């Protein structure tokens, strides 16, 4: 039986899980927002990673066939999108029940009937749109969390309704979302996959017949590949899908890391510092890395590693949010923008407005003042992004500067404006010949490092075994 290894990184903002195989290759990724219940967050991330692993293992299994028949890959990816939709749908149903329950327990009799009716309308309005976005719009690939997706849709629906009910309906949502988020849903992979196949059948049947003018170009390509062909594609994959759905993914060992690591239901031996894990993960992807910068939701770390990927020193900012991901979240709220919009807007700037505030909360006042004096939103955003990087640069300097290759990890590494300033300032401070690495999996580096530690029994793996009896595990 193949052995797999799990790493879970329970961060302050997001929880990530990575499953690797015996060759350190990533075969499953899972991510969710870290909620009040850490155990649920870790379990959801783990489940997501195992589901993702099944789809990836299917792709690996069919590697040669996919090369000859790319439509098979399209089918698998579509199947995964439907699968994600069904997961979402199940949670949406739970939310629906919870909203009704909250109506009954938290509101006056006068409001109950009206609110209950609105809740039914809202949920039935949201449902089809969500389905469409998963099946045709690649919502599943965007790594957006249930709370964020549903929150946005719910808010939009409430806006359309009687203004007098705005406050109670939003209160209703706030009261209901947390218990829904903290509930562990027992998804049955096999059943969901079967149901997904049926929905896919409908989708392709519908596509074949409708001839809808508004289909995207991307969808036309799929159509071309699968039109009249989907049944044979589906048939040819059926047994493989069954095999993957039923196979046991044997997790031989696991390691937990991140701020919430102590709360993970893992043995103490399997809990590792996120500093070591981030460094180990980043070093695994880029073996020449000597300096790692990780900007997460609530802390920033500058880490120096040796040629083995082991940490030699580190410096952290765990006191001030002004250099962390949450700062961007706060700024996004100030501008009523989504987090994903910040970077691209900042890149459109003509200049960077100097942001002096060293405090996240006070930056809000500074932003409003700058807007009042006529500064452009893009230019202010550019200044804010630069100020984060300036703080990170100071941390890097404190940790000993950039040595050789530099790798940038953490959720903030996805922000293109931050990347721009990181590159500018690293080159300016440490020379143009520094290699800067950023990986698409940057947010998963801690979980990857954890999984890699899980795969290695460090004590047994290392060449010199003299010390094995000396160092006992930390209990």
């Amino acid at each position: 039986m193949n052995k797999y290894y799990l790493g879970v990184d329970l961060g302050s903002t997001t929880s990530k899980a990575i499953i690797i195989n015996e060759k350190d290759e990533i075969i499953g990724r899972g991510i969710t927002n870290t909620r009040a219940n850490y155990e649920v967050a870790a379990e959801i991330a783990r489940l997501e990673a195992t589901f993702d692993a099944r789809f990836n293992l299917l792709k690996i299994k069919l590697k040669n066939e996919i090369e000859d028949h790319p439509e098979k890959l399209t089918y698998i990816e579509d199947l995964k999108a439907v699968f994600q939709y069904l997961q979402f749908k199940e949670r949406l149903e739970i939310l629906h029940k919870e909203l009704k329950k909250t109506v009954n327990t938290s509101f006056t009799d006068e409001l109950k009937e009206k609110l209950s009716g609105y809740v039914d309308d809202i949920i039935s309005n949201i449902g089809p749109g969500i389905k469409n976005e998963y099946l045709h719009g690649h919502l599943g690939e965007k790594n957006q969390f249930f709370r964020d997706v549903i929150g946005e849709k719910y808010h939009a629906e409430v806006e359309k309704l009687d203004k007098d009910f705005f406050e109670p309906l939003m209160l209703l949502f706030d009261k209901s979302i947390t218990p829904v988020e903290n509930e562990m849903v027992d998804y049955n992979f096999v059943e969901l996959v079967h149901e997904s196949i049926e929905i896919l059948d409908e989708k392709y049947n519908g596509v074949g017949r409708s001839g809808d003018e508004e289909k995207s170009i991307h969808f036309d390509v799929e159509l071309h590949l699968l039109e009249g062909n989907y049944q044979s594609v589906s048939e040819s994959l059926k047994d493989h899908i069954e095999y993957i759905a039923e196979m046991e993914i044997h997790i031989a060992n696991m390691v937990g890391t991140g701020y919430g690591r102590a709360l993970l239901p893992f043995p103490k031996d399997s809990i590792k510092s996120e500093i070591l894990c981030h460094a180990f993960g980043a070093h695994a992807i880029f073996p020449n890395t000597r300096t790692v910068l990780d900007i997460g939701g609530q802390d920033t770390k500058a880490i120096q590693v040796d040629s083995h990927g082991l940490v030699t020193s580190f410096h952290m900012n765990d006191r001030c949010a002004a250099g962390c991901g949450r700062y961007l979240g706060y700024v996004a709220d100030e501008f009523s923008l989504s987090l994903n919009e910040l970077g691209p807007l900042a890149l459109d700037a003509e200049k960077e407005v100097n942001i002096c505030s060293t405090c996240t909360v006070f930056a809000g006042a500074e932003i409003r003042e700058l807007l009042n004096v006529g500064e452009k939103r893009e230019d202010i955003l550019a200044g804010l992004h630069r100020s984060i990087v300036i703080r990170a640069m100071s941390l890097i300097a404190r940790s000993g500067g950039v040595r050789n290759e530099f790798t940038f990890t953490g959720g903030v590494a996805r922000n293109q404006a931050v990347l721009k300033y990181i590159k500018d300032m690293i080159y300016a401070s440490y020379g143009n010949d520094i290699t800067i690495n950023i990986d698409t999996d940057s947010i998963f580096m801690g979980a990857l490092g954890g999984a890699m530690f899980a795969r290695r029994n460090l004590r047994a793996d290392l060449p010199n075994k003299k010390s094995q009896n000396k160092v006992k595990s930390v209990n």
Partner: protein
Amino acid sequence: MSSATKQRAEVNKERSMILQKEMAGKLFKDLSTAKETGKKVVYTFVPGNLSELIHAFDLIPVYPEINALQSGMRKKSGDYIREAEKYGHSEDVCTYVKCDIGMMLKGNIGPTGEKIPDPDLLLLSYTGCFTFLKWFESLEDLYPNVEIAMLHTPYQKDGEITGEMTQYMVKQLKEEVIPKMEKVSGIKYDEDKLKGILENSVKTENLIVDIFDTPKNVPSPIDAYFAGVYYIGPINIGFRGTPEAVNYYQELYKEILERAEKGLGPVTPEGEIEEERFRLVVEGPPNWTSFREFWKLFYDLGAVIVASTYTKVGGVYDMGFRHDPNRPLESLAEYCMNCYTNLNLPQRIDLLEKCITEYHADGFLVNSIKSCNSFSAGQLLMMRTLEEKLEIPVGFIESDLVDPRYFSYANIKNRLESFFQMLEQRKLIIE
């Protein structure tokens, strides 16, 4: 109960602990009755303290920073600091100062619950810490008619004490400090008496060096930071130069040697450390408000401090300095200039390097104190230099002396855990 320590059936107080308690008890009793007995009281500081000269004039010393750390350990510093801030001191001021000022504003009740008398003399014998100057300016404000003696201490800019520097200080001792002490005490300066006191100092200093050299043993019989700050207690509350101090350190050394012979590790509040897993050298003062929790973060994981710089604030003896009865005033001057924070950065690095090498440390850790400029300035440079020169893993944590608002247990624990895991991995590879 941690794995690295074992509980003793009952807390077995060592004789040295009892002796120390008696000494401190007597000192605070003498202070509380000073007005009745007519004894004069001098407020002074630990770094560069002139204990011997104070004894030569039969004065009783009060060390404000000792009172502050005691208040921190007794969880009273938070209130005192708030009181001082109410009085106008900024959030950024040294928290020893604010705690001390706050304690005075609240009636000046010392650690034993007895009142500490007002000062007859403010003796500033180390000016390397600029805060000390300002501290005494504040005290002067609280005690308007108090006598003040100030001894300017030249910084060891080039890493050496020249003859001129010594003469400069001796001149101040003769012209400024001694006349003030004569005036306050009503006692004439007696050099032979001072020489006798200095003879006891030399004995004490030799014993201190021997004690802090016992971490050469593996396992180390002592923790040279968390227990070390207790060991230096008697000299830091003014007993250097007394027969009691000689007796205490003889007893302590004997007890430690017994532990070393039996191969025992350091004693912690939860019993002795069973397995020494990491040996560390620590730079910077400890946090006092959460001292026990702070210590526990180390001994729970079998981390033993084999040398620390904070235990040298009352005198740096590692590099050979001893008081000299044959050159009484000169050696007092040199003692002041040789105080740890008066050493330049290369000297501090050399001293740390010696400790790391001689005591076979696995790692070097800095506890950086927000409000202590004397210690904090240059710490990152020192850390980087040691890391590069000795290829030793380094760690950096931040806390405060006695302001409970600046001790974040979770953040410190997180960093320390990472640091210890880092050490563990390196040990696996190197050993």
